[in-house]
């Protein structure tokens, strides 16, 4: 019986599966054009177009709703330049509207392909419009709920309420205890309690005697004092040495930027944003136009990205910049080298070929960046003493290597040996 039911179960499952697949297939067949169109759209168009929002090129949904002449559209998509060259008035108009920037020519797309794209775009736009129309009220409510993270006021308010509630509970407990005691006393049951306190008073006398005995043991006392001194001393030694060392410092930044995502998942080169590291003493925080290279079209809906837009005075709907509204983003500096120390990124990154991670840690795994290295002079010098100089292919060192090879007979040449730990290499 068991076997039969098992087989039955499997059978039903597979029948359901096949049936499901068939239904899906039918559905898929019905939308074949649009699906193909979507694939091509995603491959070829999304770099410059979105369906409902204007980007480099126009928002295609409204555009295609207006423009119903599919033959013209096909021509335009396949070779817009030919249309412009032929001075087609519609083509010229849109060409001028978009600052005369050329759209890529897609002569490889067949008429059917283009038709698929158009079908997809229209269908998708209709769907989104319908969704918008269906839930205007819900949308508004959702928007209110989503209006950014809870403010500090809310958090403090909540904490305050909890604290007050806790105090109330404590007070109430106390009141209950007092009332209980009163109740007990009235019933004549309080003697027990007194007995307990009497018993407790005897034990500390015994304990104190033990302490007094121990105090008389001079060796023990000496040992304890020595231990205490050593412990305190080493604690203050460590504390003092680490005064103003902010290893692990992780301030809250105005934008929740994730290095893990950008450098780790996306595998972006550090220099893409910190371009100064190769050229200058300062690696530099990227200016916002660097962010906008991608974020004009990537994750445009994110509230964090909108902080960038706000800072730039950029309106994603019109793709226009309003410099009067612009206000720079105030990042919090994590690595604060004192002014008395001169540090040059390009010397280390470009000349020395030092990986960023050597000093900054595995930034590609950090959601939020923190100060990985102590940035103390000891730390600098230790590295200069250990690190071999990267001579290879750098004609600058030609004269010096000879001297040093003579000097050191094949021993390794560190930065320190080339004067890398002398005062005026960093302090001037």
């Amino acid at each position: 019986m068991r076997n039969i039911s098992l087989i039955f179960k499997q059978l039903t499952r597979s029948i359901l599966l096949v049936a499901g697949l068939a239904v899906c297939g039918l559905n898929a067949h019905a939308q074949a054009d649009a699906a193909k169109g979507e694939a091509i759209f995603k491959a070829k168009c999304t770099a410059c177009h979105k369906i409902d929002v204007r980007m480099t090129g126009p928002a295609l949904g409204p555009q295609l709703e207006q423009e119903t002449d599919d033959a013209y559209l096909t021509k335009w998509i396949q070779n817009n330049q030919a249309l412009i060259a032929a001075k087609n008035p519609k083509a010229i108009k849109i060409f001028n509207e978009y600052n005369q920037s050329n759209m890529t020519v897609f002569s490889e797309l067949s008429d059917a392909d283009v038709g698929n794209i158009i079908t997809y775009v229209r269908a998708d736009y209709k769907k989104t419009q319908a969704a918008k129309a269906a839930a205007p009220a819900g949308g508004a409510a959702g928007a209110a709920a989503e209006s950014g993270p809870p403010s500090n006021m809310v958090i403090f308010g909540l904490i305050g309420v909890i604290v007050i509630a806790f105090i109330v509970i404590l007070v109430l407990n106390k009141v209950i205890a007092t009332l209980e005691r009163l109740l007990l006393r009235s019933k004549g049951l309080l003697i027990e309690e007194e007995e307990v306190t009497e018993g407790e008073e005897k034990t500390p006398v015994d304990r104190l005697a033990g302490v007094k005995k121990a105090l008389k043991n001079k060796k023990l006392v000496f040992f304890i004092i020595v231990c205490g001194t050593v412990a305190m001393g080493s604690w203050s030694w460590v504390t003092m040495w680490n005064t103003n060392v902010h290893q692990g410092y992780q301030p809250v930044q105005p934008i929740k930027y994730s290095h893990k995502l950008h450098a780790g998942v996306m595998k972006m080169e550090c220099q893409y944003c910190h371009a100064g590291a190769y050229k200058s003493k300062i690696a530099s925080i990227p200016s916002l136009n660097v962010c906008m290279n991608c974020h004009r079209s990537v994750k445009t809906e994110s509230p964090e990205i909108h902080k960038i837009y706000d800072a730039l005075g950029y309106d994603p709907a019109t793709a226009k910049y309003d410099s009067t509204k612009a206000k720079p983003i105030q990042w919090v500096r994590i690595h604060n080298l004192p002014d008395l120390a001169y540090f040059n990124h390009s010397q280390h990154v470009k000349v020395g070929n030092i990986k960023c991670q050597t000093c900054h840690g595995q930034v590609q795994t950090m959601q939020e960046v923190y100060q990985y290295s102590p940035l103390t002079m000891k730390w600098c010098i230790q590295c200069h003493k250990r690190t071999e100089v990267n001579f290879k292919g750098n004609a600058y060192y030609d004269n010096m290597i000879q001297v040093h090879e003579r000097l050191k007979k094949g021993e390794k040449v560190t930065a320190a040996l080339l004067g890398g730990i002398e005062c005026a290499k960093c302090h001037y």
Partner: protein
Amino acid sequence: MDSNKKYWKGLEELNKTPEFVEKNKHEFAEPIPIEEILSGGGLSSKTPRRDFLKALGFGVGAVTLAACQKVPVHKSIPYLIKPEEVTIGVANYYSSTFEGSAILVKTRDGRPIKVEGNPNDLLSKGGLSASAQASVLDLYDNSRVKDPKQNGSDTGWEQIDQFVKSQLASVAAAGKKIRIITSTVHSPSTQAVIADFITKYPTAKHTNYDAVSYTGIIQANQNSFGKAVLPHYNFDKADIIVSFGADFLGTWISGEEFTRQYVSNRNNKSLEAKKMSRHIQFESGMSLTGTNADVRMPIKPSEEGVALVNLYNAISGTTLPGSKKLANANTDKAIVLVAKELVAAKGKALVVAGSNDVATQILVNAINSLLGSYGTTIDLDNPSRQYAGNDAELVEFINEAKRGEVGAVFFIDANPAYDYYMANDVKEALKKVSLKVTFADHVDETAALCNIVAPNHHYLESWGDDSAIEGYYTVMQPTINPVYNTRQAETSLLIWSDNAVKDYYTYVRNNWNTNLLAKGGLTGQAGWETLLQTGFVKVADVAAGTYTFNKDLNAVAQTVLNNSAKLADGGKVELQMYQSVAMRDGKRANNPWLQELPDPVSKVTWDNFAAMAPADIKKMGLDEFEVVIVEANGHKLSLPVLSQPGQAPGTVSVAVGYGRTAAGLVGNNVGKNAYPFHSFRNGTFQTTASATVKATGDIFPLSQTQTHHSYEGRTVIREASFKEYVKNPSVNSGKEGEHQTFSLWDEYERPAYNWKMAIDLNACTGCGACVVACSAENNIPVVGKEEVGRRREMHWIRIDRYYSFNQNGEAKVDGRSGKVTQEKEIDKLENFDNVSVVHQPMLCQHCDHAPCETVCPVLATVHSSEGLNQMAYNRCVGTRYCANNCPYKVRRFNWFNYWNDSRFDNYLNNEHTQLVLNPDVTTRFRGVMEKCSMCVQRIQAGKLKAKIEKRPLADGEFKVACQQTCSANAIVFGNANDPNSEISKALKSERTYYVLEELNVQPGIGYQVKVRNTSSELQA
């Protein structure tokens, strides 16, 4: 070795005054008042214990509180949209122009921080004067006018435009005169703008005038040759130069250019070719040029005319009517000998005179014509445009205004209410003008009398161009957005004259496209961009023609002699006004770098004074710095007196350019205004007068740095005559009789670099540009007059000026031997006229066996493997032992936190001027020692650039700041490990010696013996 020759920096040192001896015993002027506290009421009274406890309590609390904040939050604010050409932390250089010289402006992160010479500049080939170096600081001057003003209150540009245009319309309708008063405009585009303005308002007229004028020369050339130009002088083509009071190495016309030319005949290269020019200077006050002369003859201003007439007579062999002998037989004889030398060097001789008197300059023209100078040493066909002022036109303007004929006046870079000799006349005159507009960037003396102040941009904020010499056009481009709400004067004029082009940049572009680009073989946009990179175009010179003077000289000589006779009014002293090298005409009086630059000759900072001959001072019984009342031309001025060796007896010299009352926070009431002593005669301003000097008994101490750093009488200067040098190039360089030295220390390798410096004492003119360049490069604070008086100036490089008595021969001076070899003889000597001067730049010598290093208890100063003496400021605890032990006295102690102390607010400590700081150099805190680092930031940057480009470091690839600005190329710096480097060659010169080398501190700076082309005949 000429070890007997005595060099001294000041009379107090020479005479060993008790104050000098006492001061010299101590390293620092004021000891720390420890004894006062210990012995005085300090500890016995009741408060200290309580105060101590209070301070302790407060201290502990404050420290605890301060420690609560774990990490100071520093904001890091990136560009919103970064300009493509800016890399944060990397300097950009833009070509521009300063007073007609092509320059490079170093900007960091969008703000100019240093001005450097353009190495291809026609005038000084990369050298820059102290004022050019200091000009960048003016940009951040927070006493600049920050908004346009109408009747003294701030307003907007639109209101100003409306008001000025309506006023101009009514002035034009009434047919009244419009005057544009400027200091010489040599920018072609500005000239065009003014011309366009005049086309729009035909009653307008443009008047150039210069506070210190060259009208005399221009009119003399008009008179002699029919060319009203300021000639272009070629000092490099002259084998013999005779100057009558022209300070051509300092303030006369084009000091930097002339320095470069002059030194090319006297530097190491020239000496090795056994060639040296001879320079003879006749002058009253000791000028920078006078200190460099081979032979210097002090003469009174009134003797100048007589001497020139005599010189003409001696050269031409004729006798002009009225000629007479000079009172001083020596000088009289010298004139004849000079004439002989000049005639012998015909075609390679040059006579110049500083006078602004037309007749005197005609006489000089006649002399130069006889000597065949025109076409060789003097070029009238490619003239200088640097000064084109016409004194008579300014006087005429004031008269017109007084008569009420002028309806509107515009002042561009002109301040007649300060520098016109009758300032009250200007006040009276301006009262009768309805529209008075000044483009001044400060509310200066003239601006206070104007109803409109339309502040002009600083030149580093401006577009423009310039032309200092005919055929040489430089371009000016902005390096920063305007710091304040200012507008370029030219733009204002374009707007007010309803020009078709309202934007001055477009105007400049158009002017270059149509007129100037083609001259340099450039066209269009590409041509303009090339121009912005190179900075200038140069049209090939026209061949300089020869000119012969053939006018009648009798009347001229008569005028000259009459004027001289008037000046030599019996019983009175003769007053001479001059420009000091730092302050010049006073336009930059609000620049603290220039105020604190010690005058090259007197070494006085922050003041002007009445310079008198030591003999005269003794005769009058004046004390040091006693205030005297100088009275001339009906004007009185009380000034401290300064005993100036070399000053002609019977004369007193006063610098103009001081005594500003509305210059700004820094420059107000520094010194006294000497312009009222000027007078107007025969169409030009005169800078001499006959005066009386009265003692007052008051003392006004001057902050004079001359004896601040003493060598305790050790020999640091080595000097030879050209004759001796030709016989033996290593003469007096101390190479004979070398003594054995022993070293206490191990020798260290210099595996990669060995940075050394060589300074040619024969090239250095002592101008002081390096001091300002160093201040700009290394964030050196300005300390002010009081602190300089306490010997606390912070300059890392100083120019020591040494006097010595002319050692020549057995000449009798006051009946005694002129050769002074022993100190006891000096005491008896009363004639201080005949002194010669040597300038010696002194900076950290980066000794291989540095005495400072061994005494530092905390190892804050140690040696690098590249031969540098390093100073780690944050290691220094301020014991000052190093300064005590330094034989060269080049270490400077930070007595205050100059960059953050309200007492120094007037100088560099405010949020505007701090923008000029070099971000690659730390500012030093109170209590630490500092000194020359050999611009280690430049060394490191140079090395890094080579490393990044993967190539060896080339010689001369980078220059240190002092070397870079030196027009004379007196300083060579480089890697002595490279046998082919300039420095190795320079140090191998036979003239090289090391200061105090007998101490075996092994200094890293070699000096080259000063060679003087003396003449035994002349000085006899």
